[in-house]
């Protein structure tokens, strides 16, 4: 069952504008938050158990508390560079309720003491950029942004920044590089962004959904928020369901809901006559689940981790038996090859190599031993690079090749003779 906390008013068109937003309870939490102690807000967020909704699932309150206690200017960056294949929730949130994000951001900025924030929106989301920009202008006019917000003495400026087509800019340090006007290449850690981020100043990067949720935590209190979800995975989450389901789309559900429930109840199940084959539970980087695994897993950070997969950005891609896993893995590997920033050698060369092997397997130019080689390459790419893109490419490769090995072998047996001799010989 869906719980509409963040998405309560999303069906109303007026919610996009300032007036409609205010009519539906908008900017009612901000005055309350501005009267609180910033530390109290951080404690509240900590207590709520809110975890980053962008993919890594790092506890938000904890992240905020890593900021050094000094008077250096600090930045709040909203990560709206939604690039993970299968994810389209941030776009919905920005287009339907830009003010909800802005309000959440002002509260968060107040909590961490930031005077400047940026919303980094992926370049392709042209409409989102326009909507958010308009909303920011409205908020400035209404006095929610700028100097001395609502007479609290708190100043805050907000701006949007457009990406220009790079998946890697969704990685927080990659995004910071991009915002600094450089190539969007992730930076070495340490130092972590909370210590030295944007322009080498303390910086907090949070996902759209995370920042929007902050508003509801302050509105209802941590305890109320924590009521949704499980013990360690608190709150609600937007899942973007795509692939072979009858009713794809974004659905807000409490964490801990069973995947079966999402696919068969909320999304109306598969098309008639089709059988579930596999599910990618957290965007293309998440290891794939077989049908049996998908039928028993619940959608929270711990259960998925136990299953060897991850919740990621909450993008559920449902794959039925009409699809070839070889084809899907090839598409995925092509994507990571295309998006690798080219900084670290294992990722730069490994993604290219995997992509070529997958292409060869698809075309029947490969042998069975290439499957083992691909697994070996993937293992050597894991945890060897600056950012997690290398892992993101390696994890699906390993899971696809291990869990659906027989399908790959059958594909090779079927196709390996059609091409005649090739350069392997």
């Amino acid at each position, binding site marked *: 069952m869906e719980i509409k906390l963040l998405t309560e008013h999303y069906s109303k068109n007026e919610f996009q504008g300032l007036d409609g937003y205010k009519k539906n309870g908008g900017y009612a939490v901000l005055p309350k938050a501005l009267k609180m102690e910033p530390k109290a807000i951080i404690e509240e967020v900590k207590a709520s158990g809110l975890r980053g909704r962008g993919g890594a699932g790092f506890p938000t309150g904890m992240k905020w508390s890593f900021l050094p206690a000094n008077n250096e200017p600090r930045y709040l960056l909203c990560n709206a560079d939604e690039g993970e294949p299968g994810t389209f929730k941030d776009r919905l949130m920005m287009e339907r309720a830009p003010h909800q994000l802005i309000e959440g951001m002002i509260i968060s900025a107040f909590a961490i003491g930031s005077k400047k924030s940026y919303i980094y929106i992926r370049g392709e989301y042209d409409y989102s950029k326009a909507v958010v920009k308009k909303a920011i202008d409205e908020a400035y006019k209404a006095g929610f942004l700028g100097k001395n917000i609502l007479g609290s003495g708190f100043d805050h400026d907000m701006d949007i920044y457009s990406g220009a087509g790079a998946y890697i800019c969704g990685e927080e340090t990659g995004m910071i590089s991009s915002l600094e006007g450089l190539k969007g290449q992730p930076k*070495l850690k340490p130092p972590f962004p909370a210590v030295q981020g944007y322009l080498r100043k303390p910086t907090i990067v949070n996902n759209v959904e995370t920042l929007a949720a902050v508003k509801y935590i302050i509105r209802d209190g941590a305890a109320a928020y924590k009521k949704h979800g499980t013990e360690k995975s608190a709150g609600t989450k937007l899942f973007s369901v795509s692939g072979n389901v009858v009713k794809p789309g974004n659905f807000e559900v409490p964490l801990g809901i069973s995947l079966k429930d999402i696919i068969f109840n909320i999304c109306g199940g598969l098309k008639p006559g089709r059988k579930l084959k596999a599910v990618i539970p957290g965007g293309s980087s998440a290891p794939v689940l077989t049908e049996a695994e998908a039928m028993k897993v619940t959608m929270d950070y711990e259960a998925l981790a136990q299953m060897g997969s991850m919740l990621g950005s909450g993008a559920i891609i449902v794959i039925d038996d009409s699809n070839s896993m070889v084809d899907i893995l090839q598409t995925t590997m092509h994507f990571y090859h295309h998006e690798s920033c*080219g900084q670290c050698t294992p990722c730069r060369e490994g993604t290219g190599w995997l992509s070529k092997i997958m292409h060869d397997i698809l075309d029947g130019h490969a042998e069975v031993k290439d499957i083992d080689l691909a697994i070996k390459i993937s293992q*050597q790419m894991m945890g060897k690079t600056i950012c997690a893109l290398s892992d993101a490419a390696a994890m699906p490769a390993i899971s696809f090749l291990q869990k659906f090995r027989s399908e790959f072998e059958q594909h090779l047996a079927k196709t390996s003779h059609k091409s005649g001799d090739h350069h392997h010989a």
Partner: protein
Amino acid sequence: MPKVKINGKEVEVAAGSTIIQAFKASGQEICHYCWHPGLSVAGVCRLCMVQIEGMPKLQIACNTEVKEGMVINNTSPMVKETVQWGLDFHLINHPLDCPICDQAGECGLQDQYMQFGKYDPQMAEAKVKKHKVIDLGPTVVLDSERCILCSRCVRFTDEVSKTNELGIFNRGDRSEIGCVEGKPLNNNYSLNTVDICPVGALTSKDFRFRQRVWYLKEADSICPGCSTGCNVKVSYNEEGLWRIKPRENKEVNGHWMCDTGRDSYKFVNLKARLLAGKIGKRDSWQDVAVADAARSAGLKLRETVEKHGADSVALVLTGQYTNEEYADILKFFTGTLKSKNVYHWLNNPEKVNEFDGLLFRGDRNPNTKGLEAAMKNSGAAAGPTSGKWETLQSQLASKKVKVVLVAGPENQATFPDLNEKIKMLQQAETLVWMTAGHNATLDQAGSETWQIPLKTYIEKAGSFTNFQGKVQSFKAGTTIVPQALTLSEAAMLLSGHDIDWNLRPKGLGGPKTNYSITQRGTL
């Protein structure tokens, strides 16, 4: 000073240093490409992986600071496998054109693969094709396929030369180093990018294809290009010098040197050199043995002093000789000849104090400071006496000075006023010109002239005093013209003494030719 244990060996390193520096300090091997001590940390080659006790994941040594009591190793099977695969990742798209690659023999990929490699290449797919033979500028050629994108050269132009010509364009395995059309890699430090390139992607136009590096030997020396006195190593073989590379010295030049300094091997090679003593004037030159030329010149000098007094001779010195040589020649001149008529020939007085902010200085002599000090010590004169040229000029015009003894510039290109000054000095009845190279203006001499070949900086031991007053001594590297004299030897011969000819180094034989064949007669 934290103490760490590296592969079981305890080392103490300065606080704040990284693990890779601790490895270097402990003298242990660690595989790496992108890290360079003179540049910022990029951490992209992912080869300096080490295992630290208490950390689940491998860490890169170049970006991890040492902490007291860290236990580090890079010999565990896990690290070894990672490095092997890391090297394989570097090599899968690297062309196997070592035969035509100039880096072969001093290539990071070759050396480190031999030491740490997997020896089992599994890449069967086609390699990524990139651009080859790209002209980056007047000095450097790029081969993108060979590039392993360590970004050292880009960091160099960003951080050291601050000229920002280079960038890495595109992304993933399509990335290529390059310049933007209209802004080539054209600065006085461009060739350092070639030095720091761990593979053969960047090659020097000057050195490219001229020698295989395994035929070359190396000798340490001091660059004579300017008063900075960069520490260098010179590559040579029996045919002569081929290139100059910087040698690390934190106090003087760091890891770098300028492109101008790299040219200071050209005047050392045989083609530019004076090979025998020459006595006479225009159209009547006579080649004589070097020792005879020096002895007869000495005789002439001493006779002149006897006849016309000590002021009838003059000594002109340039700042391109060693401190020891200055002492000897000044001892001869002020002691034996009892003359104080010594002049310091400073080539470009108006530019002496120029400095480009990094290394290159306007004073294009390696030992101006040393010469000034030597002149002061000998009691001849003090300070740069460019102003005193008028005195010499008037003395020459009035024929008061009859014989001028000159230790001319070794690197003639640094003296823009060379020909003009030679003509002026030729006003003397006799000019005794000692230098390493030949000179066309000198060959047109109208008056009696001695030309005595001297040795260059690489052929002798000695010391230079650089602009900081730092005395840097160096050893003889190789011998190009064995018969040439050092200024000290010349001073001995000029004063009528002999030198121990047995102690002098022999030449290295000259260019390799199949000469024995052509000398065999017809049957």
